[in-house]
């Protein structure tokens, strides 16, 4: 095994591989270092290996190869109950035959804590999530949001340094989910917890995390803070997975360090920033965020290229207009413009010129 420089992290995945059947790797050579107090989200479609990583960290799966370090010690062989990790499960997994207080107290009891101390800690943890007055309810008598809070309190009651969350908000409705996101984030900040959070909801990942690890096909595709992930996706998977994206295929016409020109299939030339383009004449996929597309020439930087587009459909969405247009032969090019006073109204059938700042168009290697 090669020595790595990542050993100083609080949680370290060191060349971790995992296979269930001995034929395919679900996790391929994972290297990840999580700092103390960090909120790290593992984001990815189902089957991307993110949950397997979490399960290996929790101790329910063993790594086929590689080491997992927790606070500097190898925990590969450590059974789950000795890892001291707090965990919040997808469907809460509150023990149905115990009251809320018993659910929490049970975990302190198995740690051999005295009765008085247990009660104090349970109440403190419940108060932390504003569930103090529900202590004697059973899980079945509470709403999903309340159960979620209790599950959170249960994961925190024994003061773990590391908390794992496996899609904890998946079963809640949108409004409650957004509220809980804020509360979890708040708890993370005030308690100084290290949180590893698994989700397939990119909105959740962007709002809550310090860093996001985008998983696909058993590998981390990009590990970056939310803004960087959104604005500077490293490859076309990340660009497509995070947020909405327009993709224009073409060939690199000119490559000049920070800038490049791309010729589209229909012959038009557009500006772009090369990301993982190595040479001229290479096939590329240019990705542009819908809200960065402009149709007013006065908003464009001088010298920027503009191309022709035909408006196909304008959808009123309240705060924005979503305009679908035909660009370079593709009919699913989307532009989003803010609904402000004096905003120019476009109509289906209208021909306009569109363009973007070269930095917003990212020329990626097609997957």
């Amino acid at each position, binding site marked *: 095994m090669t020595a790595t420089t990542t050993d100083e992290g609080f949680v370290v995945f060191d060349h971790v591989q995992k296979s269930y059947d001995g034929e395919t790797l679900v996790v391929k050579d994972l290297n990840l270092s999580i700092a103390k107090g960090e909120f790290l989200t593992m984001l990815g479609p189902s089957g991307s290996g993110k949950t397997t990583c979490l399960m290996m960290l929790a101790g329910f799966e063993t790594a086929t190869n590689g080491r997992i370090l927790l606070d500097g010690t190898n925990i590969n062989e450590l059974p789950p*109950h000795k890892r001291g990790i707090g*965990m919040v499960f997808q469907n809460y*997994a509150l023990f149905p035959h115990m009251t809320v207080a018993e659910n929490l107290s049970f975990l302190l009891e198995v740690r051999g804590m005295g009765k008085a101390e247990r009660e104090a800690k349970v109440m403190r943890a419940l108060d932390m999530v504003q569930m103090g007055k529900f202590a004697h309810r059973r899980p079945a008598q509470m709403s999903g949001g309340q159960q979620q809070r209790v599950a959170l309190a249960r994961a925190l009651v024994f003061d773990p340094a590391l908390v794992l969350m496996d899609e904890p908000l998946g079963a809640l409705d949108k409004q409650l989910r957004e509220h809980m996101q804020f509360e979890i984030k708040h708890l993370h900040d005030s308690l100084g917890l290290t949180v590893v959070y698994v989700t397939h909801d990119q909105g959740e990942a962007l709002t809550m995390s310090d860093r996001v690890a985008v998983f696909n096909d058993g590998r981390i595709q990009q590990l970056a803070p939310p803004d960087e992930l959104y604005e500077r996706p490293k490859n076309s998977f990340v660009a497509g997975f995070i947020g909405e994206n327009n993709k224009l295929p073409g060939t690199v016409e000119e490559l000049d360090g920070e800038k490049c020109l791309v010729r589209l299939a229909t012959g038009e030339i557009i500006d772009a920033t090369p990301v993982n383009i190595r040479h001229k004449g290479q096939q590329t996929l240019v990705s542009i965020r819908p809200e960065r597309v402009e149709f007013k020439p006065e908003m464009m930087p001088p010298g920027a290229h503009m191309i022709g587009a035909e408006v196909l459909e304008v959808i009123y969405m309240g705060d924005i207009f979503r305009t679908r247009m035909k660009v370079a032969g593709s009919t699913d090019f989307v532009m989003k413009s803010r609904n402000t006073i004096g905003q120019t109204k476009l109509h289906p059938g209208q021909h306009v010129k569109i363009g973007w700042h070269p930095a917003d168009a990212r020329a990626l290697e097609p997957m």
Partner: protein
Amino acid sequence: MTDATADLSHAPLTTADGRPLKAALAESLAVRRRRAFLLVAPLFLFILISFIVPIGQMLLKSVYNDGFSAHVPALSAWFDANPPGSAIDETAYAALHADLVEMKRNKTAGVAGTRVNYDVAGTRSLFTAAARGAEKMEPPYKEAFLKLDKKWGDPNVWRAMRSAASPFTMDFYLAANDLKRDAEGAIVPVPEGQAVYKKLMLRTLTLSLEITAICLLIGFPIAHLLATLPMRKAMLLMIFVLLPFWTSLLVRTTAWMVLLQQQGVLNDLLVWIGVIDDKGRIQMIYNQMGTIIAMTHILLPFTILPLYSVMKTIPPSYVRAARSLGATSWTAFRRVYLPQTLPGVGAGGLLVFILAMGYYITPALVGGADGQMISNLIAFHMQKSLNWSLAAALAAQLLIVVLIFFWIYDRIVGIDKMKLG
């Protein structure tokens, strides 16, 4: 709440056209209710005729027997006129004589004698002999009867006749509990050698509890395996569990005979391996062990299926949660998994226990002498001794014991928590 709605809640609610809401609701549901009733009517009739009525008859039979009372009108009249403890005088013997003459004519002396014979053994012939000579008998009857047989002067026989002269009696319940009445009518236990029922009832209870416990012990891991294995393997295993279920009970029981008898497969195998020598072959059948082994095998699916259906609904995340949050696997099992399987344990246990309490064929075939259960004795009284009233009393007692256990279960676990699959 506003004032307007508060007012409304006091007045009876009506529909838009002014009818009371309750009446309108009942009317709208009436059709549905009638249809539901018609749908269950065939089953209800079937249960009534084939289940409720026979059980009622059986319960009645255990306290009602008119084998004697129906044939002794004169004697009954005398017993009514003379309270217990009165001297058995000439008038009593005269009444007995009148009834015996009638019995001779109707050929019912045997039936009447049998009923008294249940109470005092050896009295049936007393009646048949007396009926034969009744017509030729001359007064004074007391001396004539005593000349015929000294037993006619026995106060115990008269006590038994007085009790049998009323069709309603608790005598059979006394007999079912190894009790009887002495000459003065006091309840006393039967002599040591004749006491069988209480011992047998106790043995039935112990055997049933043992079988239930073994079934749960063996069934629990199997059910757990069934609930956690991947679908394909679980279905294969399920077929193995159900296979004996689809085989005839007799076939399964005789299979155990082949396996367990002294010259059987298992003993041969043990001798061959050298665990026991040829003279030391183990008696594994025709005793309690045989009953326990065969019945456990037959009743095992009844524990596995309810357990399986409960375990299937317990998500693995509970145990995972407990383990990841600090519980050892044993603690997680004991404190988190086991309590959640209790409805299945209760249902499976109760089902097996009730079935075991009334089991008949298997103990009859493989039980030998000390592996018999109360149901075998009930069958004996139904088929051999023809003392149906005693059989009914024993059966009713069995029913009561089962109901008591049902009640205990309801108090401890709650019948609404039972889950049969």
